């Protein structure tokens, strides 16, 4: 049996040749994975949606932990899909911090503590993106609002904020566009510019030059400073690795879809959700990416019939019935929109006759539990797809951590790992 490699040893000896996130090599060769591995060979996908203010607990969590639970007020919005999803109770990360811990939804680690963990505060979508890497044009997409997707180095992944921009990145043929025009577009599209093959190839020599300079600086530094500069070298290596993937994909034409981008203002929450989920569906369908995080807007006022107050204001409901009722109307929009996406996946057949829902794991949740209490316990969470048998309300009574569920998700997605951030045990209770 080969000895599992210690990550630190590897880092020390790796030099420039080995890129950091290839951690799968560290798994003992004898370890058995994919207990439920089936014949399916196509791509597995992940989509997680994060909402900012929890959900009113008594309107979300069913009372009975059985298959024939009664759906509370908010959950009724997806009652017709009850056999396609699992709803969880008393599942969380054991963290506190209210709004300031909401970003831990998909990682279980606060960004300020990322240096205490081997994998930092990497979120489940980014952990999967490391695995997918260059197999798709985009290793992951962070859409709408950023806060729910983090890399292992404590970096918040910037979000693509508009559906037309995301649509252009995924499906628009820009091969004939001059680099000057692309640059001009960039100010509009901010964090995700598109570049020509020539521009990308030229970047190799830029990286060479700054690395040459950095090496001569390194020789002069003390030990502590050299550690800090190591972060710079590591980052350069990662840029280089991504660059090769970008070059490869810049030569492959983008897929053509028979659709145009829809867009809606955040005020029309349900329509905005629809435009994003439609886009995510197309991205999956064309295998442009296999990992998506969708961040719901952080607050504001929505045009929802029956809702007269601001979302954040309503979450501070003060136990007033009319506020709780309005809050539930918003919670229902989150759930109903996600439910439509689940239905769409379910009604799409893969080449081997399965549905797209079987090869996709999708979750909807919030990093806060009860918005009124500002707590981060008993997080509202529903999950569908992945080939699991759904239809239950799983109450873990705090005996398992949410990261255990993510570990199982990652394993189901094909990532060979036995650890995810804070846990080394996978989830029990899913079949």
């Amino acid at each position: 049996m080969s000895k599992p490699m210690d990550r630190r040893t590897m880092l020390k000896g790796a030099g420039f040749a080995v890129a950091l996130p290839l951690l799968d090599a560290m798994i003992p060769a004898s370890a058995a994975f994919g207990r439920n591995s089936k014949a399916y060979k196509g791509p597995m996908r992940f989509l997680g949606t994060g909402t900012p203010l929890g959900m009113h607990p008594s309107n979300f969590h069913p009372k009975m932990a059985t298959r024939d639970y009664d759906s509370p007020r908010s959950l009724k919005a997806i009652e017709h899909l009850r056999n396609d999803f699992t709803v969880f109770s008393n599942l969380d990360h054991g963290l506190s911090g209210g709004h300031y811990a909401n970003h831990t939804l998909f990682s279980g680690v606060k960004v300020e503590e990322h240096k205490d963990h081997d994998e930092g505060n990497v979120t489940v979508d980014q952990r999967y993106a490391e695995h997918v890497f260059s197999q798709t044009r985009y290793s992951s997409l962070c859409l709408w609002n950023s806060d729910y997707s983090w890399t292992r180095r404590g970096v918040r992944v910037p979000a693509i904020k508009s559906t037309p921009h995301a649509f252009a990145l995924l499906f628009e043929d820009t091969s004939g566009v001059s680099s000057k025009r692309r640059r001009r577009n960039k100010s509009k599209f901010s964090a995700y510019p598109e570049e020509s093959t020539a521009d990308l190839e030229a970047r190799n020599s830029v990286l060479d030059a700054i690395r040459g300079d950095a090496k001569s600086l390194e020789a002069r530094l003390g030990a502590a400073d050299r550690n800090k500069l190591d972060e710079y070298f590591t980052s350069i290596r990662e840029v280089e690795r991504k660059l090769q993937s970008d070059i490869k994909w810049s030569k492959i034409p983008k897929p053509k879809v028979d659709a145009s981008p829809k867009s809606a203002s955040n005020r029309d929450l349900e329509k905005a959700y629809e435009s994003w989920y439609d886009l995510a569906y197309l991205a999956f369908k064309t295998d442009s990416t296999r990992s998506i995080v969708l961040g719901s807007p952080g607050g504001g006022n929505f045009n929802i019939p029956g809702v007269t107050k601001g979302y954040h204001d309503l979450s501070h409901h003060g136990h007033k019935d009319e506020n709780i009722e309005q809050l539930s109307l918003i919670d229902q929009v989150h759930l109903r929109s996600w439910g439509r996406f689940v239905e769409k996946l379910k009604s799409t057949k893969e080449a081997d006759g399965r549905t797209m829902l079987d090869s996709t794991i999708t979750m909807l949740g919030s990093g806060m539990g009860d918005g009124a209490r500002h707590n981060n316990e008993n997080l509202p969470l529903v999950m569908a797809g992945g080939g699991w048998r759904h239809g239950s309300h799983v109450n873990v009574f705090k005996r398992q951590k949410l990261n255990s569920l993510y570990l199982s998700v990652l394993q189901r997605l094909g990532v060979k790992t036995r650890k995810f951030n804070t846990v080394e045990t996978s989830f029990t209770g899913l079949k």
Partner: protein
Amino acid sequence: MAAFRPLLLTIVALCILSGDAWADDINYASGYKNKLEPFLEKNCFRCHGEKVQKAKMRLDTPRFKPTDPDSFDFWQNVLDRISSGEMPPPEKTRSGKTVVAKPNLELTADAKKISEWLSEALEQASAQASKAIRAKGKGTLRRLSRSQYANTVHQLLGSKASKLLINTFPEEFLDEGFDNIGSSQVMSDFLISHMIKTAEDAVEYTDFDRKTATREELKEFATLAFRRPVTDAQIAPYVRLAEKATATRAYAAILCSPRFLYFYEDPGKLDSYAIASRLSYYLWNSMPDKTLFKLAAEDKLTDEEVIAEQVERMLKDKKAELFINNFLRQWLHLENITLLPPDEKKFKTFYDDALEDAFTTESFMVFKYMVDENRPVTEFLSANYTFINNDLAKHYGLDKVDKYDFKKVTLKDPSRGGLLTQGAVLTSTSNGIETSPVLRGIWVLQNILGLKKPDPPPNVPALAVDTRGTRTLRQQLSAHTKSSRCATCHRHIDPLGFALENFNAIGAWREKYENNARVDTSGKLPTGQRYRNIGEFKKALLSRKDSFTQGLVSKFLTYGTGRKMHGTDRSEIKKIASKLKRSGYGLRDLIHHTTASKIFLNR
């Protein structure tokens, strides 16, 4: 019996001798055994010992070795708690349902004695350890923050280029509000790849002609960008790149070099070039200008008088506004307003009257006025003036001023004036919906009283405010001070916040809550001083102005050096603070004292 007498005398003499020796030099081991341990055992181990560890703090196991930086910080924290009167808590007696604290004069006297001894011991350790740390160098290699990067590129390439940059960068990680702390800054592939792409764009958009890149041109550019002379060997990779690729790429690569991105400083006394950079990023949030470069080349910036002259010149420059803006944003955590914005419907005036801008302008103008006129820093605690426009006048309930312009007005009522009553602070310490006495209390604790924020114990059920009945938030929060788990910290935190309850979540005055319950602002400081309203609260805080001043000096130095202040910096900070006291507390003097300090001029 007589035979023993000489021996006894000798013992007494020995004791006196060794006593004298102690007066010069405290022995940590025996001092701990004879003084500190008995005190801790009697007063502290019950709650911070083997069985119980309140606030996750255990006092019976750590060694007393304050020359070790971690041990120093630990005991400094202990000292702060004891000397502020916060610890040990007074014993409580229960009469019926109410719990009454029993004053204990003996304990107070003991605590005073032990904090005096501990303070001396730590001062001694600080002096000893500073030498050791100075030899090693302090702080971690830091890089240009997002705003520093943009300002620097602006200066190197002109305004068109810098506009492109800033929004595409990943957000900075804030440590105690600051984005320039080397040990907390993150470097990532995201950042680097954005830097490369934006640098290429920036060079193309430059106002200057950068079509060619000869060795000399590149060297000249790199000298400015790296903020110190460049050797031929250092420039060689970029010359090669210019030959192989394009001039644009060579200039862009220079803007991605670690020599550009990081502040490279040798440990120990800083050289003139490093001082030029520290000064300019401190007071301008940008790179040194020609004058600073010239003085650095002549190696004149190690001279105290030259530094003082330069600080005067820099503060008079318009670029000093970049410092004020950036420092205020970070010191007062103003980004919280963007993070949890006031509700659009509940606080319509906040948007109709553009109050966020007005608040920021008010805080900016007060700060700038205090720097320009060298006003005493105690005016941060209590001032009889502020700067307002008409919208703010309306919002604060003050007399009208000119329509749009901000004007300095004299305040007759002590309920406004000073940082604590500025809209910016009151809004950034609320959550956009309600006030939070706990958040505001922590803000006062950290920024005004200069104490550390304790971590809440794990698995505490949070409070859900109930606004149906007539109970006030204060009555509901009383759960904090009833449960002994919470009370340790909250009995000090919450009252500080209650003192500000007359101000709603966007800083408007109120006497009643929405449910008509009266606001109660009375309370007492950890030191026991009582207050009934905001006016008396400010007065009580003024009596603690020494700890406020020290905290303030520490914030300025943190910002100016890009590293967190360490326990071993404490004695130097105290020195600066008492120097400031002697010179009349002026804010401009404070800046001068920091730039003249060992902390600023050494690494």
